[in-house]
């Protein structure tokens, strides 16, 4: 068990180093920071001085090592536009994004778990077909289009929910206000996530419902609910845990787009602004942090998986 965990961590180390290398290469591909400060009023000598100050006169691998050293100290560089420190910018905007992602993950599971189990238990029934069709609709609808529909219905027509930002301007921030602002983005994000999860839980449950130990449980006469919940779903849960890690990447991607539509003041909105402004230190800082977070999530789910499932082989 410990051997397995140590092995997984050892595998993750070269991957993290690789991620920093990819990130550094992309940042260099993106262009020279000097080009961005170039202008009529900047003299050639000043540029040369800046070049030395930024360490751009050194060979590329030395630049990488310097960058990596700074990275270990928590310095992700500075924004070209606002001159703020990138780590500071990420720290101040990651909260709203995590709030949105966490809520969407929870809501999607609240929808998907009962729906998936119902679908599997009543396979080929009308309810099953409806749920599966709806789950396909959830994964097939572009998030931004669903967001537009929601804004049209709930903001424009019914005037129930606010469509932009995290809190109403000019009022004191209250939890109720934030929740009101969260409803639509969370609904949009959890729709596609629930769509995938429903089909995943359904097939995991279907597989388990055919197992011998479930037949035994039924034969014992312990009641339908306990058979399905205690013996069925608990085992299906193991496979669900493993896909959560994969979902984090997808969820983060859709969050970037949805934050844009709802002007949600999170990492996605900040990143999109950076992309439009070609503010590469910010973009690459975000890329790096998210990639490492995703990798760590996968590592944790793998370990969790090994821990939950006693039958897994630690090869």
């Amino acid at each position, binding site marked *: 068990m410990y051997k397995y965990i140590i092995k997984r961590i050892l595998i993750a180390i070269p991957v993290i180093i690789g991620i920093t290398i990819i990130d550094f290469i992309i940042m260099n591909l993106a*262009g020279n920071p000097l080009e961005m400060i170039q202008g009529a009023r900047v003299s050639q000598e000043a540029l040369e001085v800046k070049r030395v100050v930024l360490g751009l006169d050194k060979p590329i691998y030395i630049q990488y090592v310097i960058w990596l050293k700074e990275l270990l100290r928590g310095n992700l560089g500075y924004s070209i536009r606002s001159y703020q420190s990138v780590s500071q910018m990420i720290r101040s905007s990651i909260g709203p994004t995590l709030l949105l992602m966490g809520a969407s993950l929870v809501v999607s599971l609240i929808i998907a778990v009962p729906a998936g189990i119902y679908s599997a238990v009543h396979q080929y029934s009308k309810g099953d077909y409806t749920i599966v069709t709806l789950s396909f609709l959830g994964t*097939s609808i572009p*998030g931004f289009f669903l967001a*537009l529909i929601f804004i049209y219905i709930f903001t424009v027509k019914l005037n129930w929910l606010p469509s932009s930002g995290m809190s109403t301007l000019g009022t004191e921030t209250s939890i109720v206000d934030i929740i009101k602002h969260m409803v639509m983005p969370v609904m949009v994000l959890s729709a596609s996530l629930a769509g995938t999860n429903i089909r995943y839980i359904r097939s995991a449950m279907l597989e388990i419902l055919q197992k011998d130990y479930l037949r035994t449980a039924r034969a014992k006469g312990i009641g339908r609910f306990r058979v399905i919940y205690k013996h069925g779903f608990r085992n299906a849960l193991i496979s669900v845990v493993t896909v959560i890690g994969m979902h984090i990447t997808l969820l983060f991607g859709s969050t970037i*787009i949805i934050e844009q539509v709802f002007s949600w003041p999170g990492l996605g909105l900040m990143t999109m602004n950076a992309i439009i402004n070609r503010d590469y230190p910010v973009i690459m800082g975000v890329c790096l942090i998210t990639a490492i977070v995703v*990798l760590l999530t996968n590592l944790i789910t793998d370990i969790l998986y090994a821990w939950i499932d006693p039958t897994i082989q630690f090869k």
Partner: protein
Amino acid sequence: MIKRKIDKKEMNYRYQNRSWERFKRHKLALAGLVFLIVMSLLALLAPWIAPYDPNEVAGGFSKAPSLQFIFGTDQVGRDVFSRLLHGTRISLLVGLAATAVSTVIGVILGLISGYFGGWVDMVIMRFTDMVMSFPYILLVLVSAAIFGPGLLNIILILGFVDWPGVARLVRGNVLAIRENNFIKADLVAGLPGKYILFSEILPNTIAPILIYATSVVAISILDEAALSFLGMGIQPPQASLGNMLNGAQSLSVLTSKPWLWIPTGSLIVLLVISINFIGDALRDAFDPSGN
């Protein structure tokens, strides 16, 4: 009982027939297939059947649907119906071409990784892990910002970012197939590696690749739409289903000109859901464990 030698051709025929029988059971997939064929034909023939030039001003600004313009006109007076046809053409092209690029890359890397194993496998799989750790949309957005938007770039970017899934799938299949006796027989017989890889292993993993590819087509169409919606994809005046929705970010379009965004968005949903239904039915049809 009459024993009959079944030749390979007939075996194939029977297999395909049975798969088709199973595919047909999925009514929604059949409907999706019909819809997709009709839309592909309309998209292919767009230059001849579109009533107006998609990029030319044809009438007044933002005119509501009428007999003359069945889906109305957009903010600069272009015919929405003609733009829808041309936009579908672009969206389907991006979906198919990006999938072709990513599938080729993924299949090659997966085959190499699974067949050779050892350190080659180790290097390719760790590289796959790295690419998979970056959020997909973020990589696409950053690449679009670096290499610039545009049709060819979008196809290449989507293709070059989305191969890890295929690579992992192919690798897994190769590992499983390699354990079969017919491959061991090939090895014992001393057949060349190239033959075993391309004539024995690859054909046996075509079905899962195709099934996976259908979902990649769907995802690529969605991503093109999202990218163009954000203004980082296909650039106007060229129409794509995504950039046609770009205008709906303004509140006046959203509230009072529904013909500018509802038909376009619904078309994306219908195209993508059709492809997803077909993929699901294919999975069922080619699943060897099914009955």
